[in-house]
């Protein structure tokens, strides 16, 4: 397997090697080595927590620059529903769509529109016989990666339906080819305007072995100011929004599941809450649940780190924007089937590395870890560069660091040294006094 490409980067000159990101990383993927943060790519799930908490703005989301637009003859914008919640005093989504066209996109295919299609197929999918319940939404890429690295038995629960952005990319490309048969595949570029870096990783890693239909991922925060200046010039937009309440609601936690029309659902947001829910589903059976929607960001996609607005303000704006929209204009499959084009392969388990492939060796290492832990202070201060004393003990045994890095341990060593030194001085003074007498 090739190395997983992540979408969080470090500006080494800004990183002070403090413990903010270290302590907040939900998968303990970060260590501070030689005064700088270092991310273990096998453990990172692209949740963006480290970007959110870094006080020095040293952690950055990686996304494609706006000028990648020049690489394509025919450019299609795929705006995330979250984009609509970023603007003050916006009462009509048409301004956003028109703004994107004026900015230079040849077409706009709303991800909210595709979300309604996904919602429709989710309803059909839930009626299938023999499904492992609860069915877990596949929309949040952080959650999908978390499950694939940590919850082998829940891989089967993840709904094998493509997330809305992929469906949008596919349908947008088909539409473009139909309307402009002269265009070749390379001419058409699909640009997802994304609230989160995890979508960038998702696209760059050809998820589940299939190439993404999205070509470039732009950041909402990067597009925002340029887009606003175009939107301000519009008197009456010509383009019109094609999505409804259901699709636009996907921007907010709970939006996806309420639209499934099945009250046996659970919706959780925030990465810590998500992990707790998954642990509990993994332990017991939750027979009463049909559908689980999990969003790694607080508040749902509006809480993504590549957004501009406060997530809760964005949520309030989405609420008022959707009030006058039709419910779900994009649901059109009446026969209850789920077409192949929206299906994806079942999620595969990719465990993060055990202590050793050899069980006996792993057991020996675990015994060493337990032994080392007895001498550690359990302060979990992070000064050693590991998030907890337990993680530090493991790092020592794995040969990645040494016990001297523990400041509490070293302080004791130092105190002992001084005490011994003082004792020796006193003994020598005593000897001198005795010799003189």
């Amino acid at each position, binding site marked *: 397997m090739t190395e997983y490409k992540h979408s969080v980067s470090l500006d080494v000159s800004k990183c002070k090697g403090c413990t903010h990101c270290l302590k907040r990383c939900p998968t303990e993927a970060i260590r501070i080595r030689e005064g700088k943060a270092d991310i273990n790519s096998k453990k990172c799930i692209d949740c963006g927590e480290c970007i959110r908490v870094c006080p020095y703005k040293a952690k950055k989301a990686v996304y494609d620059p706006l000028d990648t637009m020049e690489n394509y003859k025919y450019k299609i914008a795929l705006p995330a529903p979250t984009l609509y919640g970023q603007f003050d005093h916006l009462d009509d989504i048409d301004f956003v769509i028109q703004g994107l066209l004026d900015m230079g996109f040849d077409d706009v295919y709303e991800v909210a529109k595709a979300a309604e299609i996904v919602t429709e197929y989710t309803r059909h999918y839930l009626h299938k016989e023999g499904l492992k319940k609860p069915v877990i939404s596949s929309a949040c890429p952080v959650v999908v990666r978390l499950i694939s690295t*940590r919850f*082998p*038995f829940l891989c089967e629960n993840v709904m094998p339906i493509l997330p809305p952005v992929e469906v949008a990319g596919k349908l947008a490309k088909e539409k473009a080819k139909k309307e402009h048969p002269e265009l070749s595949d390379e001419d058409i570029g699909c640009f997802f305007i994304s609230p989160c870096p995890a979508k960038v990783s998702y696209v760059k890693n050809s998820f589940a072995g299939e190439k993404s239909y999205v070509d470039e991922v732009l950041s909402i925060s990067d597009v925002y100011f340029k887009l606003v200046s175009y939107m301000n010039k519009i008197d009456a937009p010509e383009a019109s929004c094609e999505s409804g309440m259901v699709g636009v609601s996907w921007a907010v936690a709970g939006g996806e599941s309420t639209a499934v029309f099945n009250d046996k659902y659970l919706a959780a947001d925030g990465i810590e809450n998500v992990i707790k829910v998954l*642990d*509990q589903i*993994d*332990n*017991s059976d939750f027979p009463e649940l049909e559908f689980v929607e999990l969003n790694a960001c607080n508040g749902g996609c509006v809480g993504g780190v590549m957004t501009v607005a406060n997530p809760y303000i964005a949520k309030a704006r989405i609420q008022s924007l959707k009030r006058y929209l039709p419910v779900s204009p994009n649901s059109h499959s009446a026969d209850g089937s789920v077409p192949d084009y929206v299906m994806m392969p079942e999620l595969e*388990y990719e*465990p*993060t590395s*055990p*202590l*050793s*492939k050899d*069980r*006996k060796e*792993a*057991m*020996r290492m*675990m*015994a060493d870890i*337990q032994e080392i832990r007895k001498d550690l202070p359990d302060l979990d201060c992070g000064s050693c560069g590991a998030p907890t004393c337990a993680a530090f003990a*493991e790092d020592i045994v794995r040969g990645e660091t040494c016990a001297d890095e523990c400041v509490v341990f070293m302080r004791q060593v130092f105190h002992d040294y001084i005490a011994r030194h003082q004792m020796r001085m006193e003994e020598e003074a005593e000897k001198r006094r005795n010799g003189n007498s």
Partner: protein
Amino acid sequence: MGENIRFHFDVDGDDFSSAGAASVEVKKQLRKLGFSPDVIRRVAIAMYEGEINMVIHADGGTVDVEVGDEDITMILSDRGPGIADVEKAMQEGFSTARDNIRSLGFGAGMGLPNMKKYTDDMKIETALGLGTTVIMKVNV
């Protein structure tokens, strides 16, 4: 034969929010030791059910896990009321949990049956008024 690994946990009584925490921790450790997902799941579920039982019925207790070359042993001890009729307690759907516990979604009477189902060996030592010890083994 190598040295066995031991883990010890104290389970607080009447604290549903942290019930299951020991099971999550053991799962994490077993993953590091490279056990198969199936073994990890069986241990985690059996232990989780046992933990919940201790919280519901016995005001907490202790869990000791020993990882050996051939099996994983879990010993759950409490100083609760003891089990009056073990055979009956083993029946699916039988529960003595109070209504307020049931309203939390527990007390479905599947705890002990699940513990037996997911383990290779289970022994219950119980004395009324003194407490209960459940010893479970999962072969690896």
